[in-house]
């Protein structure tokens, strides 16, 4: 039926079919262009987070705590990590928390774990009765050294580098890591 209505073009003259093909080609290509330009521009704009990816080297952040405040081999303590300056899209926030860490001291050595579960990023709790870390979302469990004690998390808890600064305060290199993966990769 469709062919019926378009066919009469070709019947009248000999060069009409070529002209017809050209018309179809140009009409199709032009339509494709006018549709694609805004769509592709918009899509590239949407890909902005991937295109403008910043390689973020994490700085050491001072915690309001000295090693002496931690009991040797004592229960873990959760401490908020407050950075001086945090940029979120257009805003710059000053002195805002960006996360928290579990701190322990073993043989005078301070160790720090990111509280985020390497499984899917919920917050890992400390259970005094069980003497372990436990994630309430999917039941990931870790011993107090951060070793996983079941197969739910893909890796042990994420340790963070710790330094004691010149004033004697604990500083940690606060970073977050990709979840689910067996390797510990900073995001």
């Amino acid at each position: 039926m469709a062919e019926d209505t378009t066919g009469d073009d070709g019947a009248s003259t000999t060069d009409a079919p070529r002209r017809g093909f050209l018309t179809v080609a140009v009409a199709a290509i032009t339509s494709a262009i006018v549709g694609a330009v805004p769509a592709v521009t918009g899509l590239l704009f949407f890909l902005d987070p991937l295109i403008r990816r910043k390689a973020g080297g994490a700085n050491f952040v001072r915690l309001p705590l000295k090693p002496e405040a931690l009991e040797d081999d004592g229960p873990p303590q959760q401490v908020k990590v407050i950075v001086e300056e945090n940029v979120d899209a257009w805003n710059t926030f000053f002195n805002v928390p960006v996360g928290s860490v579990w701190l322990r001291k073993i043989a005078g050595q301070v160790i720090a774990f990111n509280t985020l579960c390497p499984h899917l990023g919920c917050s890992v709790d400390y259970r005094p009765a069980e003497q372990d870390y436990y994630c309430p979302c999917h039941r990931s469990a870790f011993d107090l050294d951060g070793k996983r004690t079941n197969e739910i998390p893909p890796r042990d808890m994420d340790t963070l580098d710790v330094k004691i600064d010149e004033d004697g305060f604990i500083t940690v290199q606060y970073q977050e890591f990709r979840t689910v993966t067996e390797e510990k990769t900073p995001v």
Partner: protein
Amino acid sequence: MIRKLLDWFDHRTGYREKLNEALYERIPGGARWRYVWGSTLVFTFTVQVITGIFLWSAYSPSTFTAWESVYYIQEMMFLGSVVRGIHHYSAQLMVVLLGIHLMQVVIDGAYRAPREVNFWLGLILMQIVLGLALTGYLLPWDQKGYYATKVSTNIMGATPIIGQQLQELAQGGPSYGHHTLTRFFAMHAGILPGLLVAFLVLHIYVFRRHGVTVRDPQHAPETTFWPDQVLRDSVACLGVLAVILLLAIFRSAEISAPADVSEPYAAARPEWYFLFLFQFLRFEAVEHFGLAFGAIYVPSAIMTVVVLMPFIALCRGGHRFNVVFVWMMAVAITGLTGLAFYVDSQDANHQAAIAEADRDAHRVRELAPQQGIPPAGAVTLLRSDPYTQGPRLFAKHCAMCHRYNGHDGRGRLVMESIPDPDNPGRTVKVVAWPQAADLGTFRTREWMRSVLTDYENHFSAFRDAAWFQAAQQLEATGKSVAYLDPEYSEMADWSGEKDDLGSPENLPKIDALVEFLVQQAGAKDVDEDLAAQGLALATQQDWSGTAVSDSSEATCASCHSTIGQAFVDVPDDKADGYPNLSGYGSSAWLRSFVADPEAAQHYGEKNRMPEYADRVTEQELDLLVRWMTGDFETDTEDYPSLTERLQAMVQQRRAGAGSVDE
């Protein structure tokens, strides 16, 4: 294989029939360029939907984040300015295409039976598009959109009976705030586009039912929509797209300073396609009948005529009337728009307001990456910026007497009204006399040199001040009056020794003294050695020439005893009776001087300047001082100097010319 799959799909959906219907619509008389307008409108709307949804993914509607997120889209995000530019210009083109489409429909008689309903559907679509334009203008929450939209919602409030309720519904409350944005955004990105799609479907459905309105069926052999008309439509759309892209890339969409309810915006104008209405409302004759008359009744009456066109066409000569009517409207709208642009271009105040708006817009985009936008929004950056607030404070508090490079700090000449000498009882606008020094060069080498070597002229503006003339009159009666006389004072005497000060021996010394003074004032590019020489000269007697060196008080320090020290606040009982020049021109000095010029350490009883300690807040004084002492960094262009212009106008007024053009 694919064929089979499509057959399977067609069997279940019947898509082929619908597709064929859509593609192979008959066009008697052949495909024509004049049929493209409707398609370009559908195209621009599609562009708006695509770019609009992507912009949506980065836009945040609240008074703290709207401007900020648009700024971020525009300046930081990949292709952000292009996507926003496309959306911005496509919207404007849509309004233009709408006008063309409407005119073409009327001229070709496509509104007549049996197409009346479709004509009305088109008019509804037009209202929706205008609604989209109006709501979209506010979303960036910049000064321009904010103040222009306020006018629109106030007009809404002038609607008889339900005006107030209508306005509050639109605003989400009695005044503008978070909910104005969320509601406008819901209208702009949800309700109006939804309505537009619904009416567009009806519009196209009814259009297809009747087919194109063919004026000349013999024009060419009958053809079909695909591919002949599609070719023309798509080429037209390509043209439209090219215009949009060129504008988007080479003339990025504007974003003025963040909306600030406390900062009047003198450059407020609606978007250019509403300027005709704006201009219409500005006629006093129109305003005379009340706002509702010009803004609501007249446009409604015109719309009513347009709506009734299918019926008017039933009368003899009705179609001709309709055609003449749309042409007249087109001419009137174009004329009023042109007039609005012309009137604004001739209005010095409006031009100055635009210059200020541009300066603010540029400045805030400079500050945002420098300082980071705080949670309370970018508007706070400008509120605490010396380069933005200094000129405003100067214009408000200082420009009655002082000038800044000839203007009032904000790029405007200071004018005043005086009785017209030619027309008794009338007033005439003339340039106001500057009555104190022009502070545009304050702290610079030019300023210091002028004070030293041309004191009399440097402060000569005093002579036009009322206090000066009053003091002189009083003095003429034999009374003793304490006042600053640029001609007769010890400093004027010192500075007046032109031959000695300008002698070959002394010229380098003046250079050294100037260098020392700008160093004191806190200049950054100082020749330290020269300044050290200057300091020695300021405190020791080492001048050539009889008059200067013989004078018993030849050095600066002989009178200004604290010169050369960092600014020290000298209490009244310790003052030496001469202006305290310790740290002269520095921010500490200026702060002390502006706060209390009448203190004994400054002008004492000779002072005529108001004490600003009580007139401005601590923060305002700080901003003013920081601006005047250059305590800011910027690449934003300042207002152009009007010094020469002002001098010419002052001379003109002195020569007795009556009215002076601004």
